């Protein structure tokens, strides 16, 4: 593990059983996150994009151990999480915090803003008075006047203000890494820009590292240094943001970028880049999971699963597609050099 890696994820896997019938036997499995590996570097923003059901939020919950993985490891700062010689979950949560999409349901309606934010530090051993002093400091940082907002309850706040409180709560333990799960998706456009600006400022001022999850490709491009594209529990493409957006390699990434509205009335898309809906993550297709919707699919795509492979031209740009692997059996694959 290199020195600039803050979080190392290896072969992470989480399946959810689906039970049914009288005896509640397991009838199917949702392969929510299936064998994914990636690193989060110190000080960067790693964006995770994908459509509903691709495993973005499950990944977020696995990173902060709100869910136990079925297999695989997560290591924070070189220490494996929840192993005998690694970092205990409780300590992990002091360094890694999360901001959720729904700012209303993620706040306790019976707790004032002050109690909500002070709760974490006091659980982790800070005296209540000191915790309250920290609340004031943090509220000011997220742009809420402590004198006005400390005593309010969640229902007395607007959506943007609630999301600021959520961010303040996540920052209360002075974490190194924030996992942001669709933090601006529920906000109005004019407020979204305010919160994104705040996140950029906080990252710079507090030397934070972000994992930024969103379905909005514009927001991910704006925020991220590197991007991870997920499809049905798998990583299909992973690399620097400029390279992914300017030169997407995987047919799914290309389709996703092609589906973005152009904001130009003279450049309306006439043909959808993909047909159909994302398949059900219960019993996903074999081989490459995208082959059922891929315009370039060939028999080899259904037969074998492509591995993430580095790109020859751009370093650290990885794609999982048979078309880029010599000798994969796909007609568009490069020839094996003699």
């Amino acid at each position, binding site marked *: 593990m290199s020195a600039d890696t803050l979080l190392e994820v290896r072969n992470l896997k989480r399946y959810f059983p689906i039970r049914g019938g009288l005896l509640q036997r397991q009838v199917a499995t949702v392969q929510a996150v299936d064998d994914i590996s990636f690193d989060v570097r110190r000080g960067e923003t790693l964006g995770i994009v994908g459509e509903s059901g691709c495993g973005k939020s499950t990944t977020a919950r696995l990173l902060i151990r709100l869910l136990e993985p079925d297999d695989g490891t997560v290591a924070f700062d070189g220490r494996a999480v929840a192993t005998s010689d690694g970092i205990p979950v409780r300590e992990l949560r002091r360094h890694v915090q999360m901001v959720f999409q729904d700012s209303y349901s993620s706040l306790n309606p019976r707790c004032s803003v002050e109690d909500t934010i002070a709760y974490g530090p006091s659980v982790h051993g800070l005296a209540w008075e000191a915790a309250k002093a920290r609340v004031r400091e943090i509220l000011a940082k997220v742009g809420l006047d402590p004198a006005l907002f400390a005593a309010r309850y969640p229902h007395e706040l607007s959506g943007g203000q609630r999301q600021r409180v959520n961010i303040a709560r996540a920052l209360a333990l002075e974490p190194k890494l924030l996992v942001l799960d669709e933090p601006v998706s529920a906000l109005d456009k004019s407020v979204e820009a305010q919160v994104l600006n705040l996140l950029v400022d906080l990252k710079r001022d507090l030397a934070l590292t972000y994992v930024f999850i969103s379905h*909005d490709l514009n927001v991910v491009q704006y925020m991220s240094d590197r991007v991870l594209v997920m499809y049905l529990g798998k990583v299909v493409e992973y690399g620097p943001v400029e390279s992914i957006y300017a030169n997407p390699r995987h047919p799914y990434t290309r389709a996703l970028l092609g*589906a973005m509205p152009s*904001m130009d*009335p003279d450049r309306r898309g006439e043909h959808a880049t993909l047909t159909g809906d994302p398949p059900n993550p219960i019993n996903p297709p074999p081989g490459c999971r995208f082959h059922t919707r891929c315009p370039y699919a060939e028999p080899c795509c259904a037969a074998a699963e492509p591995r993430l492979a580095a790109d020859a031209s751009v370093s650290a740009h990885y794609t999982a597609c048979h078309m880029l692997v010599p000798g994969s059996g796909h007609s568009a694959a490069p020839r094996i050099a003699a």
Partner: protein
Amino acid sequence: MSASGLSEAAIGRRAEAAVSRAPGPLVRCEALTVRFVGREGAVHAVNGVDFTLDAGEVLCIVGESGAGKSVTLRAMMRLLPDHRTQIAGRITVGGKNVLALGRRALGDLRGAEVAMVFQEPMTAFDPVFTIGTQIIETVKRHDGLSEHAARQRALELLEMVQIPSPARRLDSYPHEMSGGMRQRAMIALALSCRPRLLLADEPTTALDATVQIQILQLLRRLQRELDMAVLFVTHDLGVAVEISDRIAVMYAGRFVETGSVRAVIRAPQHPYTQGLLASTVHGAMRGRRLEAIPGAPPNLAALPPGCAFAPRCRYVETACTTAVPPEVWLDDARMARCIRVTPGQSE
């Protein structure tokens, strides 16, 4: 059969409808106000909306949550609860005064002349009946078809919205379909009686990006083929650009700017539209600070006396806070409600 999947008889009926069409715009909405009255006072959801919509035209109402977009849309079909809503103004669709219609006439209007596509098809469909049953019921009510003919028509409709294996899907319950498929079925249901006006309330907001673009393109194709007028509500300017001929930007229950898509997107006149466009994130802004609009949308129970945007506006002056700015027309099709805009200064 035509490309749109309509039967010959249906085409014939459409042609008749076209002949009987009254001259002038299909929809005329004048000084519409909607107020919700509750124990804690009145919420002023819509505060004087005027517009016209021609047959075969797509008007997109863009605004943030609480701007009054959906309420305006629902008023077009009188879907708001009678006992708690005060509606004033005048709405005519095809010459009929919608606000004065009796129960029976309203039932004839809904579905047959004006139909609606909702944001969440899962809650808009009845979960205990199949998709087919719900379409057949509608067709029988309005067109008086037999069960067999209605089923045939339902099948044509599912084909028209490109649902794969439509015969099997007729017998599916809403929960058995994916989100995109349900929205296609919802569109089929809305179009089942060939409405002249389609109301679409954020129909793609709950969908994934790759599905959203498919549904927008489907709506656009059907709108052209069936020559329908569409009133489309969205919070997403990108979606509005994809679908509309004209855009109306709504803020605190008023249209603050209207014009052709090109004019509004390329040369926004109202400070709110300018702010909305500047704060819409796109990739080219990487590394630059976003120009966010400060503050939050106003409370509709206690609106400021003048321009509702004044508290957030960077150009605010005294005159803004004393009276609501009048509509300023730059040309026949271009309006902005801002005192800084002068008539006829269109670029």
